[in-house]
């Protein structure tokens, strides 16, 4: 049993992120914490698995007790024998490179014998048949496969409690449904499941209770039946995604326009798979969504279109003129999924004008104003929050004034409110001289913004 009593939490000198949280979670129960980004739901989860104090330097008042032990008095490895964690981004979850060793790593560390380990492995494979993921290189798995492995690892560890922090953020629909099935099985096995999430449709068959968190407080506790009665608009107002599955309603690509991809061919080096795109045309002034399962090569396709993949064979034409890779590179901009990769300078203003010859300062300042960044123009980009960093990246794209603009998963891990913000921003980028491509598995987002989608 998890007992949280009057828990308050703050990071450094900033104001409290959690204020007076009190609740109990029974064994075998599934509890969902939901709310806007920044509401404190992740902090609750991280104070249960002990990471908030050890890694984020949080100061905690009140207590979190697991089976009558105050976790403040426990070391992280002692907490980890009771609680296993699944993180938002599965790529941060792994310590080993080989998948089998990764699954067994915890068991080795708690000193089980080889025979016991084999038994656990067999037991896990009976529950989750994932033989195809064993003995592989972690870096060659897709995001969805990684998250499956993380959840399997949390089962094999045998801990009674499993906490998950926004596990669906980086997954496509198909993998979300796989994760859902896995969670149902975990619940049947009597594990206590604690999830923080704002994409909630897949949890409606699993959660017993839902806590709505706002500004670090429990705003309301719902039973599942009560929660199901809340209308969708109300949920969106609260920053939550829809509670039923959203289907993609955007029409498929029309195949007209003056940006023609006559052929793209890319051979993946490790698998016998090839990426193909043949005879597709895109129209200026439109926003295209690129959709497809995790691991099909959507990001690779982006790189091929931009001209970053040296090995790709391509025939791409704009206004009947063939564009070489370096031609395309010159007219392209990209906003990456992890924007930390693309911020290079020491101030916002120099960042957005980097690499652009002869640009007027007033033009840059206008763009900054439009994106709410003007006040931050002298700050170091790396000192900004995640959302602000992303806006800086978008501002730099707008300044470069490229014909082709690419977004790679711009809304992963975003709540409804932030998703709509990004959607408005991208709409502002849209004009008759540009084509915008968005790789995304976020169907709500694509419904709100894309003119056409192309299935990979």
């Amino acid at each position: 049993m998890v007992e949280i009593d009057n828990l308050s939490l703050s990071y450094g000198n900033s104001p409290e992120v959690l204020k007076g949280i009190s609740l109990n979670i029974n064994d075998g129960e599934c509890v969902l914490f939901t709310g806007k980004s920044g509401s404190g739901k992740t902090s609750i989860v991280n104070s249960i698995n002990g990471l908030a104090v050890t890694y984020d330097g949080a100061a905690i008042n009140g207590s979190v007790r697991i089976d009558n032990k105050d976790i403040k008095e426990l070391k992280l490895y002692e907490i980890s024998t009771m609680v296993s964690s699944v993180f938002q981004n599965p790529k941060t979850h792994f310590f080993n490179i080989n998948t089998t060793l990764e699954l067994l790593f915890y068991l080795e560390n708690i000193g089980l014998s080889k025979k016991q380990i084999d038994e656990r492995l067999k037991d896990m494979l009976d529950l989750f048949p994932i033989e195809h993921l064993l003995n592989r290189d972690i870096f060659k798995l897709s995001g969805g496969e990684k998250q499956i492995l993380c959840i399997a690892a949390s089962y094999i560890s045998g801990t009674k409690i499993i906490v998950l922090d926004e596990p669906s953020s980086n997954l496509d629909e198909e993998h979300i449904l796989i994760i859902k099935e896995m969670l149902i099985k975990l619940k049947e096995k009597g594990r206590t499941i604690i999830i923080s999430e704002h994409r909630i449709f897949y949890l409606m068959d699993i959660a017993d209770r839902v806590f709505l968190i706002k500004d670090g407080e429990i705003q309301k506790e719902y039973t599942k039946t009560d929660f199901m009665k809340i209308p969708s608009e109300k949920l969106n107002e609260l920053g939550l995604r829809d509670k039923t599955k959203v289907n993609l309603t955007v029409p498929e690509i029309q195949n007209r326009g003056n940006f023609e991809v006559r052929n793209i061919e890319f051979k993946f080096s490790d698998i016998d798979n090839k990426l193909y795109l043949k005879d597709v045309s895109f129209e200026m002034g439109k926003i295209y969504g690129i959709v497809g399962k995790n691991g099909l090569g959507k990001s690779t396709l982006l790189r091929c279109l931009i001209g970053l993949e040296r090995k790709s064979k391509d025939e791409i034409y704009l206004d009947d003129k063939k564009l070489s890779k370096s031609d395309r590179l010159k007219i392209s901009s990209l906003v990456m999924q992890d924007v930390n990769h693309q911020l290079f300078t020491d101030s916002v203003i120099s960042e957005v004008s980097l690499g652009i010859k002869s640009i007027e300062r007033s033009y840059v300042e206008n763009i900054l104003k439009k994106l709410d960044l003007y006040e931050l123009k002298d700050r170091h980009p790396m000192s900004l929050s995640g959302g602000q960093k992303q806006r800086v990246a978008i501002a730099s794209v707008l300044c470069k004034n490229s014909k082709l603009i690419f977004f790679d998963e711009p809304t992963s891990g975003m709540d409804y409110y932030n998703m709509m913000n990004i959607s408005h921003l991208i709409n502002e980028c849209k004009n008759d001289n540009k084509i915008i491509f968005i790789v995304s598995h976020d169907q709500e987002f694509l419904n709100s913004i894309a003119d056409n989608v192309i299935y990979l």
Partner: protein
Amino acid sequence: MPAFQDNPYNPNPITKMCIIILLGFTVFHQVNIYFEWGIILLISFLFYKNGLKKEALKNAAFFAAFSCIVPNIGIIKNMNSFIMMFFIVFVICRMIYLPYSAGKFFIRTSDVGSIISSMDKIKVPQNISIPIAVMFRFFPSFKEEWKNIKMAMKIRGITIKTPFSYMEYVIVPLLVVSSNIADDIAKAAETRCIESPVKKTRYISVKIKTIDFLYVILILVMIIGGVLW
């Protein structure tokens, strides 16, 4: 279902580390070129047998290039200072090539678990072996992130053609990304009870295999032979 397959041509991590140290010796003592080739080919062979065919080729090709390009010290001394500066870089690369290539073999073919357990075996305390393992795990993650940074720079038009601004711009994302990786790895390890004081078991036991003896003996023979020749 083989949960994990052990490769008979993959030596123990300890062996590989010893070889790196042994080959460190060649930095200060000239070893006969034929024996050096012997060492390089041995390492290439091991790369090949561990499924890294490209590395096997690269290893030999780079060595061939270095040993052809780099003239001997006598000629360099008489060059004008600018060209000398240029060549000295190659000379240094050439000098450290043997331990470098053994190091690369170590990094590419050892997994974190077997490194920790082999260090357990020779009674290295955990507060040394865990940081080494974490460091080890850092490289592959870093490589992946680095690819992304390079890509972003290319789109922004920052290329190595302007080396000074390249260095300046690359450093910020590199530091941020590196510190994130380090945090993530440590977190992943700690939530998996790596610090637990109980005696750890190892699913794959790191045994001393024939290849370990062969590797050490062959390298020793070639170093000693190359020095005495």
